[in-house]
C-alpha cells in the first residue's frame, strides 16, 4: 500500500489524533468510578426505587409487604433481588462491599456470616441503632449484629426455632402416626428417636421415598441446640472438640449407614426437584424452612405436609437473618426507614403468618397473628404455639467469623457420605482439612 501525503496540516492532525488516542486511554484508565448503589436517582417527582438483595425466602413477597410499603409511601418502589442459595449470595456480597459497587440499598445477612461482617466490615454499614431500638429484639439476636462499641449493622428479621416437617400421607402409608402430637411424642427422646422413627418408616416406606432429605439437616439441628458450637467464648475455633458437632456427626453417619436419607444437598436444584416430586417424608425444619418447602413442593402437596415440635427437650436455633443498610448507598435514610418498617412487630407477624418465618422482634410475640398463627399449607399446623414456647428457651449461641463456612463444609462432607459412600473417618478428615484451610 502506498501512502501519499499532503504536506500541510498532517503533523497537526497527527498530534490531534494522538492526543485523542491518549486522552481516550486516560479516560479508560480512570473510568472506574465509584458508584455506591445500583438504584437510580430520584426522578423529577421525587420517586425513588429501593433495592433489597436477599437469599432463600425472606417472606416479604408472600406477605405482600413491598406492595404495601408502596401504598404507604407512593413515591417509593421496592424491588427485591433474590439469590436462591446463600452460599452463592455471600461471596458476591463481600466483593460488592469491597468494591463499593453493585450493592443494593438493603442487603440480607445470614447469621453464619454476621460475626465476620461485624468484626471486619462494620464501617461499610450504616448504624441502625440510630434508627431502630435494638432492645426490640430477643436479646441474643441484637448482640449478634452489634459491634463492641454498640454499633448495630443489621436489624433482626427472623430466628430459626427447630421443628420437624413431615408428610402425613407418606407417614400413613408407612403405618406411622400422622397426628402432630403423636409424632412429637415419638420424638420425645431427642434426635436418636428421630432415627428410630426413620427405621420404622423404612420398613414400610412407599416406593421411591426416603425418610429425610439429607443427614446434614439433622446434623445442623443437633449442633444448633448448643450455646458453643464452632467457636468458644474467647474466639477460638473449637469445632473438633465441640460436643454438639461430635454428636451431630455421629448421628449423621448413623443415618447414612442405615440409608435413611435421600442424600441431596439442601437448597440445590436436585433437592428442589425432589420436593416437587415429593420423595422425602421428613425435613428437619427451622421455622424458615417451611417457606422453602411450600415454595418448592407446590400445590400438589398442599395440606399433606405437617409440622411437629422439635425432637427432645432442647431448644435450638438454626439460622435466621438480618437486614443491613450499606453505608455507601444513595438512599441510606430511606433504606433505614424501610428496614425499620420491615422488622417492626406487625410486619414480622405478617411474614410469620404468610411464610412461617418466626419473628425475632419480641413485640411480635404477643400479637394475635403470631399467637394463633397457623400455616394453611402445612395442614394448618399451629406454628405460633409450636415455635413460641421454644423461642423463649433458645440459648444465646457464641458466634464465630467463619461459622457459615464451617457449617457448609461439614454439610458437604455429610453429603459425600450419602452420595458417594465416603467413609465417616475419611469424610471427617476431609472436612477438618478444608476447615483448617478456611480458618488459616
Amino acid at each position, binding site marked *: *500500500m*502506498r*501512502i*501519499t*501525503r499532503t*504536506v*500541510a496540516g*498532517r*503533523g497537526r492532525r*497527527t*498530534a490531534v*489524533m*494522538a492526543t485523542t*488516542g*491518549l486522552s*481516550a*486511554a*486516560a479516560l*479508560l*484508565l480512570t473510568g472506574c468510578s465509584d458508584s455506591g448503589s445500583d438504584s437510580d436517582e430520584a426522578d423529577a417527582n421525587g420517586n425513588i426505587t429501593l433495592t433489597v438483595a436477599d437469599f432463600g425466602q425472606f417472606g416479604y413477597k408472600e406477605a405482600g409487604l413491598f406492595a404495601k410499603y408502596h401504598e404507604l409511601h407512593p413515591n417509593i418502589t421496592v424491588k427485591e433481588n433474590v439469590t436462591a*442459595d446463600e*452460599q*452463592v449470595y455471600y*461471596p458476591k456480597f*463481600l*466483593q460488592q462491599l*469491597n468494591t463499593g459497587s453493585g450493592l443494593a440499598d438493603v442487603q440480607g445477612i445470614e447469621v453464619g456470616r454476621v460475626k*465476620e*461482617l461485624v*468484626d*471486619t*466490615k462494620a464501617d461499610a454499614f450504616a448504624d441502625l441503632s440510630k434508627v431502630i431500638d435494638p432492645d426490640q429484639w430477643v436479646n441474643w439476636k441484637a448482640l449478634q449484629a452489634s459491634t463492641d462499641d454498640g454499633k448495630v449493622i443489621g436489624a433482626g428479621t427472623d430466628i430459626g426455632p427447630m421443628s420437624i416437617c413431615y408428610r402425613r400421607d407418606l407417614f400413613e402409608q408407612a403405618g406411622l402416626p400422622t397426628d402432630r402430637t403423636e409424632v412429637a411424642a415419638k420424638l420425645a427422646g431427642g434426635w436418636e428417636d428421630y432415627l428410630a422413627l426413620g427405621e420404622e418408616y423404612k420398613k414400610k416406606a412407599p416406593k421411591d421415598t426416603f425418610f429425610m432429605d439429607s443427614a446434614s439437616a439433622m446434623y445442623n439441628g443437633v449442633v444448633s441446640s448448643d450455646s458453643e458450637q464452632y467457636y468458644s467464648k474467647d474466639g477460638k475455633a473449637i469445632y473438633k472438640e465441640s460436643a454438639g458437632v461430635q454428636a451431630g456427626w455421629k448421628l449423621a453417619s448413623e443415618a447414612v449407614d442405615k440409608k435413611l436419607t435421600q442424600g441431596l*444437598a439442601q437448597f*440445590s*436444584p*436436585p433437592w428442589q*426437584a425432589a420436593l416437587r416430586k415429593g420423595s422425602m417424608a421428613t425435613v428437619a425444619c427451622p421455622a424458615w424452612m417451611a417457606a422453602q418447602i411450600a415454595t418448592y413442593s407446590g400445590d400438589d402437596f398442599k395440606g399433606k405436609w405437617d409440622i411437629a415440635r422439635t425432637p427432645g427437650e432442647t431448644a435450638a436455633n438454626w439460622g435466621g437473618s438480618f437486614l443491613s443498610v450499606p453505608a455507601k448507598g444513595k438512599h441510606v435514610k430511606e433504606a433505614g426507614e424501610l428496614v425499620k418498617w420491615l422488622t417492626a412487630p406487625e410486619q414480622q407477624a405478617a411474614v410469620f403468618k404468610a411464610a412461617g418465618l418466626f419473628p425475632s422482634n419480641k413485640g411480635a410475640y404477643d400479637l394475635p397473628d403470631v399467637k394463633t398463627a397457623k400455616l394453611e399449607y402445612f395442614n394448618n399446623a399451629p406454628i405460633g404455639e409450636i415455635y413460641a414456647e421454644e423461642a423463649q428457651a433458645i440459648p444465646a449461641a457464641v458466634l464465630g*467469623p467463619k461459622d457459615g*463456612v464451617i457449617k*457448609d463444609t461439614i454439610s*458437604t462432607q455429610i*453429603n*459425600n457420605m450419602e*452420595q*458417594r459412600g*465416603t467413609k465417616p473417618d475419611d469424610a471427617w478428615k*476431609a472436612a477438618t482439612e478444608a476447615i483448617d*484451610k*478456611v480458618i*488459616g
Partner: protein
Amino acid sequence: MATTTPTRGVQGPRPGRRAPKPMTPGRQAWRSRLWRFDDKASPYAYIAPFFLVFGAFGLYPLIYTGWIALHRVEMTSLDQMEWVGWGNFSTILQDSEFWTAVTNTFVIGVISTVPQLMIALGLAHLLNYKLRASTFWRTVILTPYATSVASAALVFALVFRADGGLLNWVLGFFGAGETNWANGHWSSNIAIAVIVIWRWTGYNTLIYLAAMQAVPSDLYEAASLDGASRWQQFRNVTIPALRPTILFTIVISTIGSMQLFGEPLLLEGGQVGARGGTEHQYETLSIYLYNYGWNLGHLGPAAAVAWAMLVLLLLIAAINWLVGRFMRKTAA
C-alpha cells in the same frame, strides 16, 4: 521493541514535491524538522493507547498479583496486608487439592485438545473441497463458538444430569445403567471435555481452513499427477504446510484449557460447582483459585495460584517452542 523501521510507502518527502506556499528558509528548516519528528514519533503515538491500556489492565495487575501472593490478604479486609514471603506458595504446594487441580486441568486439557484439533483438521479438510453451499457449512461450524460459555455449559449440564439427563436416557436404550456423570472423576472430566470440544472445534476448523486455502494448488495438482490419493495428499502436502498453524492452535488451546473455568463451574452449578465437585473431582486450577479467593476469602494463596499457573504456562510454551524447533529442523 524492534529497532528496524518498517518499510513504508514513502520515505520522507519525495523529490519534486513542492510546498504550496513559498517559505522563508528558516521556516522551511523548522518545517522539515517538524516533519522528521512527526515521521519518527507519530507511530509511537498511534500504538501508545494499546500499551497504556495493556499496562493498566494487563501488566500492572500481573505484577500486583505477584505482590499480593507474597502477603496475607483477606477478602474481608483488603487494606491489611501482612508480609509472608513465599509462605503462600508453600501453602498451595503442600495442599493436596492443588495437585488434584493440576492433574484435572491437564487431564481435561489433553482429552479436550487432542480430539478437538484432530476433528478440526478433518473437518477443515472436508470443507476445503468444492462443495455446495460451502459458506453455509462454514458458518454453521462456527456457531458453537458464538454461544456463550454459560449457555453451552447449562445445556450440557442438562445432557449429563444424573436423573433424567438426556445422555442417560439415550444410554438407557442400550441397557446402560444410570451414570452420575458429575460424580466420577473420569466421567466428569470427559463431560467437561465434551463441552470444550463442542465449543472450540469450529473455531479451530476455520483457522485450519484459512491456512489450507493458502496452500498453493499446484502442489496438489503435482501430487495428483504423481498418482497420490486424497489421503496421501492430505498427509504429504496439507499437514506439512499446516505445521506452523497446528503449532499455533496447540499453543492457543493449551492456554485456553489452562484457564478452564466456566464449564466446570456450571456443570453442576451453585456451591458444588464453585468447589469443583463435592470431592474436587473436576476442580481445575482456575476453580481452585476462585474457591481460595472468593469462597474462603484468602487472596494471598489465590494470587500464588495465579502465578503458579503463569509458570506452568511458560513451561508448556517452552516445551512447545523446543518441539517446534525440532520439527523445523527435521523438516529442513
